[in-house]
């Protein structure tokens, strides 16, 4: 970040354009550094939050199953369908959990999209 200030800048205004151009280049360089720092910071945080991402997917999945089973249980309490309400809605809850996980994953992938010009990794079938 900290470059040495230019020591030999002219006292008079004769070389002012040169000094300003130099300053511009230095600002541009510093901006570039900041962007690179931000990018590395972001990738590091992306790695660190892997656990929270996993917990999110897990809770999405489990919550749907619990809600499905709970709804089925309530239906069976009030209608003479025991045990089919619980059975059917538990399975539907499982499907809803998968749906939740797929949606959450799609959203996470959209947030951290792979850049378009990334070269494809070579694999066995290319040979």
């Amino acid at each position, binding site marked *: 970040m900290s470059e040495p200030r230019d020591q030999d800048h002219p006292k008079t205004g004769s070389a002012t354009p040169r000094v300003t151009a130099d300053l511009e280049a230095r600002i541009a360089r510093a901006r570039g550094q900041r962007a690179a720092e931000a990018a590395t910071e972001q990738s590091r945080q992306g790695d660190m*939050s892997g656990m*929270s991402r996993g917990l999110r997917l897990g809770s999405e999945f*489990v919550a*749907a199953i*619990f*809600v499905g089973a709970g709804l089925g249980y309530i239906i069976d309490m009030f209608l003479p369908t025991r045990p089919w309400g619980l059975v059917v809605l538990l399975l*539907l809850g499982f499907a*809803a959990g998968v749906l939740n996980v797929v949606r959450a994953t799609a959203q996470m992938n959209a947030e951290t999209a792979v850049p378009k010009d990334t070269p494809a990794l070579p694999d066995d079938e290319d040979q």
Partner: protein
Amino acid sequence: MAEQPIEPIHQFRINNLFDIGTFGGNGTPGSGTHLAFTNSALFMVLTVGLIMAFLIMGSSRRAIVPTRVQLMTEMSYEFIANMVRNTAGTEGMKFFPLVFSLFMFILVANLFGMFPYFFTVTSHIIVTAMMALLVFFTVIIYGVYKNGWRFLKLFVPSGIPWPVLIAVVPIEIISFLSRPLSHSLRLFGNILAGHIVLKVFGGMVVALLGAGAWGIIAIAPFGMAVALTGLEFLVAALQAFVFAVLTCVYLHDAIHPGH
């Protein structure tokens, strides 16, 4: 001190600080609703007080060249405002006060919990469940108010033949109903588990130090406790952020139903 068992869930106990009174009931012990000012309530008041002090201090000067506090206030505003615009759309900005309040409350409550001997408000599911239900009912009420019957299109994905819809609509409804559960469980679970694990490793250090020469291996759980403390700070901020992001995602559904 040494006889006292190490109890990792003692930190979540609710104590009555002073009684407010009993409402309803017929006078016999155990009937009616007993209200008291608890340690949980105390920390909620402290959380709200700190947020208010921070925001009032930060926004009172309105200097063009901001002080540190003003800069932090403006950054927190910008951060949430950008998130709401990106996730819920520009129309979602009318819910900015809700999202900002939820984010700041959860963030400050989680960070308060990182002080030793402090009570963590968000480690009780009743608190997180009420916040998640607040969002859930906001989505339903605003969605029906704004879109009327078209809000139900949320459960009917477009471009699907009707025989498949018989299976898909119940799945979508269960998926919708599971939102407040996963929304509240995630915050509660992360905070609860983190604090228990921290306490277990801390207790292990104490137990090993009391074991004479074997006390030297207490350095291992101590290192874990230090590392986990750092991780818990990350979790505290991250879970506040995740709660706010999901609030925005759900609000987006209320504003634009239909996928």
